[in-house]
């Protein structure tokens, strides 16, 4: 599903990492391990189409991500890649439904209220449809971001440190939830983390500390 070819990346000139080749198959899951500052987030952003690499290719199926023009890349990202960040970063001026319907609008997918309700009830948030985002608990906010990432039935789900601020119990719950949902949509899950608690859950692992 995702193929990385001869990728050079790094966020400063001193430290440039190279991945000669990496392939993650459909419905396989990849864990990117690394200490903070090792370039996990940068790599994740490159895979997610948010940041141009110095050189090399990111290929989705047959599609070279950075061969697309800016607007097409934006649209492709909106429709095919679900992003989950460490902090929830919801739009606090909107309700839960507003956040999700904005997601549909911005990615260019027709408004589908039934889908919004479906994905919210999957994550146990059905009755929060009209709540203001500020009124939700941290855990609920994170589940709304997961709902947002899943809304457009993405082929790839990228999660940046999703468990960093959670206790053991909740960390494994979130990982299970992400894996279940990814399997349900037949999507590839990529998690960047330094959290040793979750590393046994993944078949493909990339340890940036060893590059």
């Amino acid at each position, binding site marked *: 599903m995702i193929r990385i070819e001869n990728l050079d990346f790094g966020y400063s000139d001193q430290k440039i990492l190279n991945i000669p080749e990496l392939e993650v198959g459909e419905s396989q899951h990849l864990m990117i391990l690394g200490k903070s500052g090792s370039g996990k987030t940068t790599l994740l952003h490159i895979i997610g189409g*948010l940041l141009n690499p110095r050189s090399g290719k990111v290929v989705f199926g047959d599609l070279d991500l950075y061969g697309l023009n*800016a607007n097409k890349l934006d649209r492709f990202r909106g429709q095919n890649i679900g992003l989950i960040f460490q902090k929830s970063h919801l739009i606090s001026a*909107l309700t839960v439904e507003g956040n999700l319907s904005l997601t549909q609008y911005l990615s260019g997918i027709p408004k589908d209220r039934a889908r919004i309700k479906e994905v919210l009830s999957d994550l146990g948030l059905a009755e929060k449809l009209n709540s203001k985002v500020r009124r939700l608990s941290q855990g609920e906010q994170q589940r709304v971001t997961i709902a947002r990432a899943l809304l457009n039935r993405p082929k790839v789900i990228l999660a940046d440190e999703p468990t960093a601020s959670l206790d053991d119990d909740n960390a494994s719950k979130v990982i299970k939830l992400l894996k279940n949902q990814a399997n349900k949509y037949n999507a590839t899950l990529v998690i960047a983390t330094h959290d040793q608690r979750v590393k046994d859950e993944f078949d493909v692992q990339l340890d940036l500390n060893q590059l």
Partner: protein
Amino acid sequence: MNLLLLSWNYIKSKPLNTLLNVLLMSLGIAIIIVLLLFSTQLDNKLSQNQRGIDLVVGAKGSPLQLILANVFHIDFPTGNVKLDEAKRLTRNRLIKTAIPLALGDNYRGYRIVGTNHDYFNLYNGEMEEGELWRYNLETIIGSKVAESLDLKIGDTFFGAHGISVEGMDHEEATYEVVGIMKQMNNVLDNLILTNIESVWMAHEHEEEHEEGEHAEEKQLGSAYETGLPDGDEDDEITSMLIQYRSPLGAVQMPRIVNSSTNMQAASPAFETARLFSLLGIGVNMIRSFAYIIIIVSGLSIFISLYNALKDRKYDLAIMRSLGASRGKLFVHVIFEGVIITVIGGLIGLVLGHGLMEVLASYYEKSEEVGITGYIFVNQEVWILLISVGVGVLASILPAFNAYRTDISGVLAQQ
């Protein structure tokens, strides 16, 4: 959800900030609207009332006063001129028509104007009921006079000396209402028209009380339709409204009058232009003030957007990550500025009209001149365009910042 709704939700989430910006904007727009309505209507009314009058000839004094008193009927007359001298002037071949006016009396604040039917026709007057006056002491009255004094055909009244309410009554000369004019929205609405002889009679009674020769029977006016009335060498009129036969009149006539007679000539067009240039200083100052308010409101919108976007850079980066193009974010921020200024502009529009109406009902004179808040002028469309323009200007820099959002950079800073 769409961009407009998204921007609206952000605006709603900061009610106080929005209130301040909308208030500033609407205040500026309201002042401009009031000035616009006032000057447009005043301009219209003045040009309506001076239409067809090339020159006013009357007693020496202030030319502006001559115009204000004899054309617009809002100032005191400059004095009287001899009938004979006026008659001599009308024989000049440059003059096409000369309408005589005899002012000086009022009935409960409404001016009694001695003149002839030409004056009525000059303003395209029409009768609501009754007919034009012919006999001395017969009058026709304007629609506002009829309405506010509740006068009907056949009613009689005494004129009072002077042109304000406090004058003394001429109890000997009894005017009779023979006709009521339609509402014309010009000076006719506030006037009582009669023969020049009627005005003389009201005054002669004081001086020649003993003669008693003006008996019961009515006298036909000597020039009720057109021209100047017969009269002896002591008789006077207040002024003449003159129309030239050819444009040459404008060159020669004022000079002839001012140098070779005891009268003065004033051009309504010139004097009102002069009046406006005097008024214009004040109007311009108030208008500049209004524009300053609008600029401040634009600045205030700019500052709040600029600050808000600093807090919202994560929101913007998230929106980009969800598939929004740079252009969409740009438009989103522009919408936010424009929504505020357009709401401000619309409120200002309503406020301006309301304020004009309140001011108009507060000052009695404005009703006489016919100024109201219930009127729309074409330039108001420009005001709305200005609102949109201020919104765009205030938000263009913040919008450009939003356009340049570095998604990865912002999202990595968690």
